[in-house]
């Protein structure tokens, strides 16, 4: 156990939050003993007057809170407490002071003891960017409703994409062609003179900077997310350049229109007649990309859709990162950098909208009723941004006032700027009663999509449907099934597995010569395929995630990780025996990430299981320790070395929990490949775990652990709670003591269906059961108390 005090244990268990870890860490090891000794003294001598938690009692009503240091407190106690002729001896006073300070006196302790509440939050950066994109784009689908994958290719016999000269139209899974000195289809094209246009959408999995790379000996032009200007313009072929690059920032989980144009002809004066019969040069073309922090690859078929999506406005102004100290992004603080970023983003948006007024508003520049129609656009814009009908004051003070400007375009710019800087846009559920239908809609959409309510949800709110829990659930189900819903779950799963930011994976070249950055990128793709195929399936079964014996491998990965896959094959599902792969925990991407460059790391692996999969709290190590280098103990196995290093008393309380879990994964080396021996010794992959009830479980190897994690109530409960935190961004206890047990029960009843869990979570979080309705008059607290 990490804590001896029943009180601390209870709190730790209930909130499971790493905040406790951070705060408790300040106590240090030495004072820990003082604290427990001090507690005994306090109970005997102080509690009768001050109350058992320093809250005050019959003898002394005021709570024991303040800002004195431990030594100041100790001095005070030794010279004045208890009242009367004989005071506490200095040695005991010191212990009592340590106890009081740590448990309830200090500001830190008070913060920790505060009941869980729903705190007012601003939009996270992700939510801000998504909300602006959907505001400007008026909610076109994030991904076109087209199950096909690949691009539409149109092949022309001329040089300017004249439809009359189109001789071929087909779907191409990817763009990687070598036409040699002939046309795309021999005999149908003049080898000097043909052009091709590929069009459709490209699906960006993550948010970040994407680099697109086109290679060709001939004229090419690439448009991504809009018509002008092209991201790559090499229509003038000049010199020996045949590789062109262009970067842009994209929001994850959305599909963007893409169009690649290729021409083998010259531009300028038409010389096709003169070239007839003369030998033609070679022609080839490929379309690749570098996803954020991954290596270059030809854009794979699974990220291409043959239907073009509408362009998305992407705010590119940089933002300071959100607080992630609790394991999920949250917006519970503001700063100057954040304020400046919102200003820059608001200006960027206002300038974008005013520069494309006819396209975005649908109002032509010469429309006779332009002013009135632009005002209507602004009213809709504000309504969508504030996610509720416009108040008469705003109608009057903002909208009417802006439209007194001579130039209605200036009025639009002003309204957009005001709206995006307003608290009604920037903060979550800040207007209206807590459970008015618009706040319910807002919680639902930010929880499931990280963006504003879409028109359908606003309609349901206006129609009063959302206070009916069954209809609320229908909306949640609709939204969870949308690609945006999957995107949010995907981001949670990556955070749950600690790979939400792409880790650097560099391995020892002489030990693992085949492990290069491309393998690392492929492994990430393989993990993503696993998550997507399990969680987006009908059963969406948590247990399958924990137990699945298959891996997605392409040719390059199969060479390293086994499986009968041709060398140049794309990703395919490969089944392994349970002794080889058991569930997502044995995915080589995680195992390679949780390892050193030249050795496995049972500690990192164990910590992932303890913290993220079992939801247990671990304090940071009391002292910073560098891992023992394998070369110092050449005859030891990793297991023996780790055991040796974590033997000191200061280590064992946590490592007794961590190591036996991490050891079960010892059959996987530093790149997550199966091994039988280490240093010529047979691998010992046995392990154990003592659960919160004190029951000890033993594992023969990783497959035993996987089975345990798929069955354990503790693991499933931890999964539900972490999912809750990630979607809702508020502590689950703030929604009542029965919420988490209820969610766990429902999770079981749904056969551990992950998508159902998101729906269950959001139906509760959007309309908390028994939550007191906040009055519109000022109230002293705005919280859902759970004391």
């Amino acid at each position, binding site marked *: 156990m990490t804590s001896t005090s029943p009180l601390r244990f209870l709190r730790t268990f209930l909130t499971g939050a790493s905040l406790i870890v951070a705060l408790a860490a300040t106590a240090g090891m030495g004072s820990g003993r003082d604290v427990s000794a001090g507690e005994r003294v306090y109970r005997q001598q102080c509690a009768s007057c001050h109350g058992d938690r320093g809250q005050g009692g019959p003898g002394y009503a005021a709570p024991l809170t303040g800002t004195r240091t431990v030594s100041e407190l100790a001095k005070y106690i030794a010279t004045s407490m208890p009242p009367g002729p004989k005071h506490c001896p200095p040695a005991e006073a010191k212990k009592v002071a340590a106890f009081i300070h740590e448990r309830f006196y200090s500001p830190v302790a008070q913060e920790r003891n505060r009941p869980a*509440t729903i*705190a*007012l939050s*601003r939009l996270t950066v992700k939510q801000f960017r998504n909300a602006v994109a959907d505001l400007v784009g008026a909610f076109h689908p994030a991904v076109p409703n087209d199950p096909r994958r690949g691009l539409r290719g149109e092949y022309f016999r001329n040089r300017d994409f004249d439809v009359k000269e189109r001789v071929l139209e087909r779907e191409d899974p990817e763009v990687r062609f070598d036409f040699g000195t002939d046309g795309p289809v021999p005999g149908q094209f003049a080898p000097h003179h043909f052009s091709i246009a590929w069009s459709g959408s490209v699906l960006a999995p993550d948010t970040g900077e994407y680099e697109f790379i086109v290679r060709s000996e*001939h*004229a090419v032009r690439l448009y991504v997310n809009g018509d002008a200007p092209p991201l790559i*313009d090499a*229509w*003038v*072929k*000049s*010199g*020996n*350049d045949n590789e062109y690059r262009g970067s842009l920032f994209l929001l994850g989980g959305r599909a963007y229109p893409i169009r690649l144009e290729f021409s083998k*002809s*010259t*531009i*300028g*004066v*038409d*010389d096709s007649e003169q070239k007839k019969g003369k030998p033609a040069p070679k022609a080839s073309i490929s379309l690749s990309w570098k996803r954020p922090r991954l290596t270059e690859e030809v854009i794979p078929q699974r990220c291409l859709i043959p239907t073009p999506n509408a362009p998305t406005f992407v705010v590119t102004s940089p933002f300071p990162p959100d607080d992630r100290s609790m394991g999920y992004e949250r917006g*519970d*603080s*503001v*700063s*100057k950098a954040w*304020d*400046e970023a919102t*200003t820059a983003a608001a*200006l960027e948006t*206002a*300038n974008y909208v005013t520069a494309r007024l006819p396209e975005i508003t649908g109002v032509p520049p010469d429309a006779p009723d332009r002013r009135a129609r632009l005002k209507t656009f602004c009213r809709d814009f504000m309504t969508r941004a504030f996610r509720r009908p416009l108040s008469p004051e*705003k109608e009057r*003070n*903002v909208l009417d*006032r802006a439209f007194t400007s001579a*130039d209605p375009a*200036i009025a639009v*710019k*002003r309204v957009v*700027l*005001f709206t995006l*800087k*307003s*608290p*009604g846009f920037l*903060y979550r559920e*800040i*207007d209206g009663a807590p459970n008015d239908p618009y706040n319910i809609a807002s919680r639902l959409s930010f929880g499931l999509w990280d963006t504003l309510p879409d028109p359908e949800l606003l309609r349901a709110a206006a129609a009063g449907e959302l206070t009916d829990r069954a209809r609320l659930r229908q909306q949640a189900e609709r939204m969870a099934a949308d690609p945006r819903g999957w995107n949010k779950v995907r981001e949670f799963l990556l955070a749950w597995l600690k790979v939400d930011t792409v880790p650097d994976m560099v391995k020892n070249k002489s030990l693992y010569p085949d492990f290069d950055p491309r393998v690392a990128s492929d492994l990430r793709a393989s993990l993503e395929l696993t998550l997507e195929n399990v969680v987006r399936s009908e059963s969406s079964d948590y247990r399958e995630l924990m137990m699945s014996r298959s891996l997605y491998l392409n040719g390059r990965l199969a060479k390293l990780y086994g499986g009968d896959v041709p060398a140049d094959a794309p990703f395919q599902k490969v089944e392994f025996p349970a002794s080889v792969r058991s569930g997502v925990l044995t995915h080589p991407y995680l195992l390679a990430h949780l390892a050193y460059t030249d050795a496995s790391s049972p500690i990192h692996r164990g910590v992932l299981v303890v913290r993220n999969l079992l939801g247990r709290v671990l304090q940071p190590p009391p002292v910073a320790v560098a891992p023992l280098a394998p070369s110092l103990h050449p005859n030891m196995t990793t297991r023996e070395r780790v055991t040796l290093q974590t033997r000191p008393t200061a280590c064992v309380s946590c490592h007794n929990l961590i190591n036996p879990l991490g050891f079960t994964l010892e059959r996987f080396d530093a790149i997550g490949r199966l091994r039988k021996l280490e240093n010529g010794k047979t691998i010992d992959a046995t392990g154990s775990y003592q659960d919160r009830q004190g029951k000890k479980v033993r594992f023969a190897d990783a497959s035993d652990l996987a089975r345990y994690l798929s069955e354990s109530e503790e693991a499933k409960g931890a999964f539900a709670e972490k999912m809750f935190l990630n979607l809702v961004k508020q502590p689950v206890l703030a929604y009542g003591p029965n919420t988490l047990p209820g969610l766990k029960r429902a999770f079981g009843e749904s056969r551990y269906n992950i998508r159902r869990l998101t729906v269950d979570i959001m139906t509760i979080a959007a309309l908390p059961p028994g939550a007191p309705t906040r009055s*519109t008059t*000022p*109230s*002293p*607290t*705005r*919280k859902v108390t759970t004391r």
Partner: protein
Amino acid sequence: MTTPKTRRDFLRDIGVSATALPFLLNLPCFAAPGALPRKRRLIVMFSPDGVVPGTFWPDEEGTEFTLKESLKPLTPFKDRTLILRGVSDRVKGDGDNHMRGIGCLLTGIELFPGNVQGGSDTPAGWASGLSIDQEIKNYLQKNPKTRTRFGSLEFGVMVPEHADTWTRMSYAGPNKPLPPIDDPYQMFGKLYGQSKDREMLKSVLDDLREDLARVRRNVGAEDRRILEEHTSLVREMEQDLREAGRTAVGHAVPTLPAGIKRDNDAIPVISKLQIDLLVNSFAADFARVATLQYTNSVGQARMTWLGITEGQHDLSHKPDNDADAQTKLTKINAWYCEQLAYLARRLSETREPGGTGSLLDNTLIVWTNELGQGNSHTLENIPFVLVGNGLGFKMGRSLRYGGVPHNRLLMSLAHGFGHRVSRFGNPNYCGDGPLPNLT
């Protein structure tokens, strides 16, 4: 005698004429003690399709010469004009003369082979080096004392929307053509967008404060803290805006008339707006180098406002004995010369901020063309008409060089900024360095 207040007063007092003044100011011994060196600026103005030699080049050499029809509009600035005949574009290689004419004009180096097929010759791509305006810009931007917000600005008037060898004159490097901005609204946004944005922000601050106060009343004490922090951030923004306003442009932000369309008949209006914006941007010291590109190489402006309905390029192919065409081409070039004269006048009417004299005293305009003459497509005798006293050249002259490579003139421009390059573009055409007899 009273103490002279300015350098100009001082020089007048000692009997130096205003014409010699800018030249003299370049000499260290005449610079006021402790004064900063004067600013130097360059504008390259481009018009297409060659000129009519007979109505363009003065017959005389030296300081006594007559401006012929094509150059008549320069009369008020004759003593600040320098006409260079016999400077030729010697760069060979891929591409037709129109392509090499514009692509090598400021780069002095060959075009890459490519896929742009001209009316003759082999197809070509972009220029294989940077242009002199960008070379000078980079030189000025390297030094904190001469660094400006943009360094250089590329203006255009009705440049066709396709990017190819015929439409690009400035290059940031090999294969790096710079597109000129030919939409005055776009240029305005680039120059003044920030200060417009600040004004707009200021105008919504009151509403924002009200709204924050309203929601603050609606929430509990614990949640109020974040909103109070937010309110103080709004207050800080207001202070920052006030601060930024104080250090902003330095002159009144100009206003553009609304609704100007980008079409042939609007060329005169767009030309005037672009020149006004250019002069303003120099007055605000946004940049010290600019290009102003009328249409493109092979440009087809139809100067209907002069009563000419044919496209310029079509006219330029007519033979010398087609008197009507030659008269029209002369008129066309005189119209470009009027634009040059308007630019010179605006610069001469604008006081040098923080210095003495006018902007024209510290600016050199170079008016040039991709061809010597349209119907022969010659790259000999490329028109180079220089106006203004920015680089210390001795103005008020008509000079003949008898066919020197134009790379040497490009080098002279760099040297005029104190950037003493030993070669520019293809070194084979750099001969004995900068042109003699300019200063």
